[in-house]
Structure formats: structure tokens, C-alpha cells
């Protein structure tokens, strides 16, 4: 594959959302790794200070600052770099004050007085705007060999239930600020988010509730002019261990017992019965998964699928998931 033939060429801000428990942070990290090749520089942003990225990469908690956290997968020519940033509203507000008003020290005084909490409290959309603002600033930042400081930015965003509000920043602050600095800041953020440079990917497991939430989330974002819905990344899928028709016909327990005996296992009859039950349950699960996958496919977005890993998610697992995303054209 060349650097050109992915499904999301031209996208520089990848927003990753998903229902809680679907592995959104893991997928965002794998996507960042997959994008970091051919000398490219990728920034992985954590929007809701839970330090999940630090844990995934087995690092101490990330400070508010961009740190190199991993190198991209090798083996395809030049590798790339993944940087990470954990955004918190306080740091983002200080950044904002510094960037637009050169007032870092006033900002520090505000922090001491508990004003940041206060400001984000009286303007509920403010912390979201600051957070998306930091991500879009990184997208626009100049530098690097292609003219951009980062070739791509991946954002581990809030869960699906809140993603519409989180990204629709101008609407979020408009009730509060009809004019003024926050409003114009929000508008410039929206210019990046509601452009072909940004895609919102949904992480989903093949279960009813996450699938329903994903479909609702996609419909919600499609209703916002300029917002680009990205791919649906199915996570923790259980691949069928046998062809569908064999699973459907159900196991022949006595044949199974014969095979188990040949494999040198004891009490083969009893074991065959319990393995037969497991196969039947697996068949049922595969059928349910197929149904959920069909429902997701109806949304008409590209579908990617990552397998359930039975071991703990460590760095090796992340590279494995990154390779899957790469092979399937997601990155």
C-alpha cells in the first residue's frame, strides 16, 4: 500500500467516539499508531483526563504537554512518531489566554482563585470549546516537512451520547455568547471540525445497545451541516471458528467424542457434551453478531473489524490492532 490509498486520505483530524465499554481509547491509540508511518508525525489527544492513554502505553500520567509516546510500526519503509497529549480544561484555558492575549500569568492567578472552575461553570460549553480548540490548533499548526506540525491528529473524544454536543461547538456557546471572543474562537474551531479535514469515527461492539447508539450518533452528526461521519470500527468481535453452515447444523456429539479420544483426552463423552454446548452458544453469538453487523452496514459507512483479544491490551496488542486497521484501509 502507498500512503495514498486509505479510506480517509485528506482527513487530518480523526475524532474517535463510542459508547462506554466499547474500547474507544484503545481503538484511538491503535489508529494513531496505524497512521504513524512513512515518517509521519501523529498527535494522539485524550479529551477527558482519565489518563487512559498513559496506561495503554504503560507510561506515568501524561502532563499537559505534547510528548512522544511511541514510534509507528516499522516494516513499511520509514516509521513515524506518535505524540500524546492529555487535555484538561484548566491547561487549555491557560493555553488559550496565552495564545490570544499573551496572558499566561493572569491565567495562573485565575487558577489559584479557582476561577477556571468558575469560568467553565458559568459557561457550560467553554471546556468543550477549549478542548476542541486545542485539537484544531494542533491540526492547523505550521511546521514539519509537509508544512504541518502534525500530519494527523487523533482525538479520543467523549462517548457517543455526548459527541454531537461536544463537536457542535458554535451551537453550544451561541446560547451564551452571541458575540465576543469565545464566540469567534468557537467559529474558527467549527471551521476545522465541519470540514472535509475532519472525520468522526464510531467505535462499536456487536451488541444491541452500542449498535443502536452508534446508529443514533451517526444520524445526529449527519444532521449537522458540514460534519463528516467517518468509519464504524467494530471492536472485540468474535470471529466464527467454523463456516456458518457447519455452525448452524450443530455439532455431532458422538463424532466429537471420537475426535477428542483420538486427541488423547480423557472422559471424552462428557467433554464432547460440554464442548458441543460451547459450540452451540458460539453459533448463537455469531448469528447475533451477524445481525448487528447487518444493522451497522445499513448506515452506509465503511466498516472495519477488530477481533476480541483474550490477553490484556499491551503495546504488542496495540500494534496488532494497528496492523488490522491498516490492512483494512482505515489508515
Amino acid at each position, binding site marked *: 500500500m502507498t500512503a495514498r490509498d486509505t479510506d480517509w486520505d485528506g482527513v487530518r483530524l480523526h475524532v474517535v467516539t463510542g*459508547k*462506554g*465499554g466499547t474500547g474507544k481509547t484503545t481503538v484511538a491509540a491503535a489508529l494513531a499508531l496505524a497512521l504513524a508511518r512513512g515518517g509521519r508525525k501523529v498527535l494522539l489527544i485524550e479529551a*477527558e483526563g*482519565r489518563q*487512559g492513554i498513559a496506561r495503554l502505553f504503560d507510561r506515568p500520567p501524561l502532563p499537559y504537554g505534547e510528548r512522544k509516546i511511541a514510534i509507528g510500526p516499522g516494516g513499511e519503509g520509514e516509521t513515524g512518531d506518535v505524540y500524546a497529549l492529555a487535555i484538561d480544561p484548566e491547561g487549555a*484555558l491557560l493555553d488559550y*489566554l496565552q495564545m490570544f492575549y499573551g496572558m499566561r500569568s*493572569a491565567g495562573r*492567578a*485565575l487558577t489559584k482563585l479557582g*476561577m477556571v472552575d*468558575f*469560568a467553565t461553570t*458559568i*459557561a*457550560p*460549553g*467553554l*471546556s468543550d470549546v477549549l478542548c476542541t480548540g486545542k485539537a484544531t490548533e494542533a491540526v492547523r499548526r505550521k511546521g514539519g516537512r509537509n508544512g504541518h506540525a502534525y500530519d494527523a491528529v487523533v482525538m479520543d473524544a*467523549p462517548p457517543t*451520547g455526548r459527541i454531537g*454536543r461536544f463537536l457542535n461547538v458554535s451551537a453550544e456557546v451561541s*446560547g*451564551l*455568547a452571541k458575540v*465576543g*471572543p*469565545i*464566540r469567534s474562537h468557537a467559529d474558527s474551531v467549527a471551521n476545522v471540525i465541519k470540514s472535509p479535514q475532519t472525520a468522526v469515527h464510531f467505535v462499536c461492539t456487536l*451488541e*444491541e*445497545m452500542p449498535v*443502536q*447508539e452508534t446508529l443514533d450518533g451517526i444520524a445526529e452528526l449527519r444532521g449537522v451541516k458540514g460534519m463528516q461521519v467517518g468509519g464504524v470500527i467494530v471492536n472485540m468481535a468474535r470471529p466464527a*471458528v*467454523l463456516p456458518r453452515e*457447519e455452525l448452524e447444523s450443530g*455439532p*455431532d456429539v458422538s*463424532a*466429537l467424542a*471420537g*475426535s*477428542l479420544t*483420538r*486427541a*488423547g*483426552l480423557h472422559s471424552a463423552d462428557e467433554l464432547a457434551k460440554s*464442548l*458441543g454446548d*460451547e*459450540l452451540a452458544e*458460539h453459533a*448463537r453469538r455469531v448469528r*447475533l453478531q451477524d445481525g448487528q453487523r447487518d444493522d451497522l452496514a445499513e448506515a452506509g459507512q465503511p466498516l472495519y473489524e477488530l477481533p*476480541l483479544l*483474550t*490477553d*490484556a491490551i499491551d503495546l504488542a496488542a496495540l500494534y496488532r490492532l494497528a496492523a488490522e486497521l491498516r490492512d483494512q484501509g482505515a489508515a
Partner: protein
Amino acid sequence: MTSTTALTDNPVLEADRIIDDRRTRIIVCCGSGGVGKTTTAAAIGLRAAERGRQVCVLTVDPARRLAQSMGLTSLDNTPRLVEGVSEEPGGSMYAMMLDMKRTFDEIVEAHSDPARAEQILANPFYQALSSSFAGTQEYMAMEKLGQLRKSDEWDLIVVDTPPSRSALDFLDAPERLGRFLDGRLIKLLLTPAKATRPFTKVINAGFSVVTGTLTKILGAQVLRDAQTFVTAFDTMFGGFRERADATYKLLQAPGTSFLVVAAPEPDALREAAYFVERLDAERMPLAGLILNRVHRAPGTLSAPRSLAAAETLESAPNGSSETDSSQASADAVAAAALRLHAARMSLGERERRVASAFTSAHPAVPVMEVPALPEDVHDLAGLRTVGASLSGEPQ
């Protein structure tokens, strides 16, 4: 439930004892998102109703089909009788979905005269605060809980906590919102005209820098709206602090039981551990941990032995006769079954390791393991099944 397959050696949580104890008046289900909190709350409510309690289930953000299973079709802030609940033992089940904005509006209407209420409700700052302030949902859920408890129409209220960023938010949000609305800071900052006495001058000088900066960040209009709001809201401020305190006391009362819900995943259990520690620090009564979506290891054949057997079958030489070929296809099925079994055993082993990180630190916390269900819950029958497994009844 047999102890041989349990993930943990902790004491077993006996949900039925909590439900059947008439002194239990409130059950709070808490935990991080995506662990089955709402389903657990609904299942406990149903089981309690069918064991004779007068139950009200307060849910915050239920999935559509789960809401439908309880007959809830809209967010109308009123407890509705759930149809189809067995009334034999004399119990009943009501359920409601929280409408946080309406709950807030009702507080405003109940505590100010109509003209002032109208003025507050129309204020843009109030509208933003009541519909999107992070913490309003938590505050209003606790407010509603207090109202339901006070009405004394139900003898058991089961509440599902909001899907916050942190499972602890609902404990802190009422205090935070109360402190904010009640705060001297907001009054001083937004009504500087009132604070002209000499000893506040120094503070005022500081505040004018702050106000200036806030104007830069937010714009003058936001501050003006906030100021109008504060002026109109003035008489209600003290009430918020008091209400937050009252809710806190209610949560500490002996009739309250906390059930922490988690899945055998590192993040969910880390949150659960924080929560257990926090409840202890706040002297809030923890009933135990519900470990949802557990994949029980089926049988005793270990993962390595299972894999080895699969390899033996896969490497067997293939004959050409008819018996050989049917034997080969049976072997292929058996090898697939053995690999499937090995994966399940590994998953079970991983869950056991993850769970032990929690139980080693909290060996005395009662735990109930609930097996992963292949399908989501859509109806009362599904909730009944969940309720039964919460109570340790065999499937």
C-alpha cells in the same frame, strides 16, 4: 452459584437479603459507563416488586429498548406504573426517567413568585445552566431522589446514577453546584456595586482584574446574563446548599444501600475501587459489588491442554478412504471447538486476574458475579432473568 467457578473468594453479595429487608429504603446503583448499571437497577426494582415491595425505579438515561421494557416512552419526570409485574405478593413497580431541566424548573417555580420564576426561566444563562452544566444532571437526580423519598409513596427507591465521566461525579456535583450557586464568589463578582465597604476594597481590586479577564474570555454579555440571573435567583441561593446537604445525609442514612456495578475490565474495576474507598471515607453504606458480564470458564480442561489437543488433531495425517475423510472433518470440528474453549478459558483467566486486583485490596466487600448474557434485555422476562442471576439463582 458454585464457588469453584467464582472469580473471587470474597463473601457473596446476597441481593435478596437487601431487597427483602424492609429497612432498605434506597438502593443506589453506581459505576462507570457501559457496565450495565441501568439494567441492574431495573432488574433489582422488578425483583423487589415481585417480592412484595412498593418500588419506584429512577433512571437517568436508559437505552431506548430498556426503557420500553418498563413501558417508559417519554422523559416525563413522573413515575409510571409498570404493567405486567406480578402483583401476587402485593408489590408494585413504578419507573420514571429523569428530566433534569424540568426538575430544575420545578424547583425554581416552587421557590419563587410567578413573575420572578418567569424571569429566571427566560434567562439565557439559566437555560444553559439547567440544560448543559456538567453536574446539573447529577444534582437533579439526587434532588429527585430526595423528593421521591420524602413523598413516602414507595417503600423502596432504586436509583441509577448518571453516566458521568467519573462514577464519583454524582457525589460531588450537588456540593459543587450548591457551592457555586450559593457562593459568595459569584455574588461579589457579579454584583460589585454591593461590595463597597472599605475592607473589601483589596479583594475588589483583585476581582476587577478577574472580571476583566473573564470578560475577555467569555464576553461581556455572558457576564451580564449571569448577573441578571444572580439578582433574580438571589433568594433561592441558600436553599441549594441546604438541599445538597440534605441529600448527602440521606445517602449516609442506614436505609440506603450502595451497589457498585462493574465489568471485569481494568478501567471499570479501577473506578469501582475508587468508589468503594470513597463511600467508606464518606461513611456511606456499601452493600457490595456486582460484577457484571463475567465469562465463566466452562469446565476444567485448561487452555494449554485444549490447544495442545487441537494441534494434535490438526497435525494428524489425512487418509483418503471415506471413513478417513469423515473422521478428518469431525476432527476439524473438534479442533475448532477446542480452540474456542481455549479462548474462553483464557478470557476467564484474564478476568480472574483483573478481578483479583480489586479483591486483593478489598477482600471483605461482598461480590456477586453475573454471567454475560448473549442478548440485551428487552422485556420484563429479560429483567427477571437478570434479577434471578443477581440473586445467585442458577440459570
